[in-house]
């Protein structure tokens, strides 16, 4: 059985090389159930490379990614069979893309988008699928009457919320987010963050969130990792890192935010 204090995810000395160039180097950390880890850094610092390697989308050059599965105990995700890995990715894991068009099926209705994961794990009752889709639409604050509308008729913020609903419908335990608020205007961002914070808390989700926006990191994450040139240069509790940055680059990053 999984104990509450066992790490859900353990990343050990993860290195991703693109030929001679460093994608990310020597990254190690542990993530516990319900914990939110923010990864911040400037563009090109290796945040997205790291996220792709952890989320089994790109095999790293070196290092291990171990996940506490529901039935099989701790497994190295790159040693699983492809079938097991893909099943894990569409049930116990979720991936929220920056651009909702990458994460949604634009040519089927919102209901079918939310229902897809349920049907993928064998749900074959139309009525049940539809009512859970409706239920999730409510949780992400989209009106029920939009259930049969195509995502292309939704606004950007609604598309992003739909993507979140579609990912959370199978009750995953670990969610990867790549700049989930990028490309949204400030008021929509605030609302989405509010919603995410509520869902993360209510569902006890473990989240790894990549962002360049320190305000997003401050609001959502418990712990923070700061990356520069592929390496983690500072990590710790979010407030600690942001209020008392030790590394010169982190100090620069924090001081570059407009203060009022």
């Amino acid at each position, binding site marked *: 059985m999984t104990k509450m204090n066992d790490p859900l995810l353990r990343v050990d000395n993860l290195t991703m090389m693109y030929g001679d160039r460093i994608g990310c180097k020597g990254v190690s950390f542990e993530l516990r159930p319900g914990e939110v880890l923010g990864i911040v850094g400037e563009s090109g610092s290796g945040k997205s490379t790291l996220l792709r390697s952890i989320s089994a989308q790109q095999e790293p050059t070196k290092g291990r990614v171990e996940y506490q599965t529901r039935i099989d105990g701790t497994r190295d995700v790159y040693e699983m069979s*492809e*079938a097991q890995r*893909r099943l894990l990715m569409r049930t116990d894991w979720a991936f929220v893309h920056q651009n909702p068009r990458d994460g949604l*099926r634009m*040519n*089927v*209705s919102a*209901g*079918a988008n939310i*229902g*897809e*994961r349920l*049907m*993928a*794990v*064998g749900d*074959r*009752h*139309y*009525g049940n*699928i*539809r009512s859970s889709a409706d239920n999730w639409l409510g949780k992400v604050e989209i009106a029920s009457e939009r*259930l*049969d509308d195509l995502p292309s008729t939704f606004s950007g913020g609604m598309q992003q919320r739909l993507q979140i609903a579609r990912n959370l419908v199978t009750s995953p335990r670990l969610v990867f987010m790549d700049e989930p608020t990028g490309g949204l205007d400030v008021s929509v961002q605030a609302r989405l963050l509010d919603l995410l914070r509520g869902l993360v808390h209510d569902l006890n989700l473990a989240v790894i969130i990549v962002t360049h926006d320190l305000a997003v990191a401050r609001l959502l994450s418990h712990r923070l990792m700061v990356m520069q040139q592929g390496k983690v240069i500072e990590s710790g509790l979010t407030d600690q890192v942001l209020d008392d940055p030790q590394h010169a680059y982190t100090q620069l990053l924090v001081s570059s935010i407009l203060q009022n």
Partner: protein
Amino acid sequence: MEQTVNNPADNTSAYNFAYLDEQTKRMIRRTLLKAVAIPGYQVPFAGREMPMPYGWGTGGVQVTAAVIGPKDTLKVIDQGADDTTNAVSIRQFFAKTANVATTEKTAEASIIQTRHRIPEKELREDQVLVYQVPIPEPLRFLEPRETETRKMHALEEYGLMHVKLYEDIARHGHIATTYAYPVMVDDRYVMDPSPTPKFDNPKMHNMAALQLFGAGREKRIYALPPYTKVKSLDFEDHPFEVQSWDDECGMCGARDSYLDEVILDDKGNRMFVCSDTDYCSERQDAGHRGQQHHDQPLGGPKSSPSSEKAAE
């Protein structure tokens, strides 16, 4: 060993038997063996250019050419009919290049090549049904990448197929897919039964005859060995059902066959008639009469304006 067919015009050997060269036929037969061994799995093959355009049954013709022998009797149907352009030209093609006997009678044929329909008459173990397939990939509607659909077949990830059916019910209130209705073969592969109406799906289940599917443009062959389990996909609360008609066949009075609607004039008159021409004419020969048959006296029982118009 080359077999040739004499050209009756000048008594020269114009074509190899059944048009294709022997090496190509061997290649297609190997593909067919693999397809039969893995029911429902799409096997790639090196499809050849045929003397007809893609979409006219080049896949089916290549499969037929690979399995036909001099003693075979061939029947070709298009939308159930033996006398449509596509059916007539393919039948003549094999009569000319393989010198085989042809027939319009389902019971007399050893090989039946079809586009769109499965004959109404039950097929036997000594018969082969060859389908012409335009799009062999059932997942194509939602997943355009071939690499991805192959992986989905390999890993049995078929949830996407139900997304399509879900979308149908959400938009139309029922599963509105009426042809190319996806089926699960032998509890393993999801297969597109080509553009046959879903009315014919139940006939594929446990059929005694061998069923071969050829897609010429997409260069894929797949097969159902005799007595294979074929199940149409559905939802628990929206079970699979076939089309039904309020009318009967205007010519033979059949109520159990697939009916085509025929517009008779520009005043809204129409009639329904069996799409399987052989089935319909056999019933007529046995004395069955529909309301619009020309033997039916005008003003006969339950005569309607449309039936009067139709009577010649």
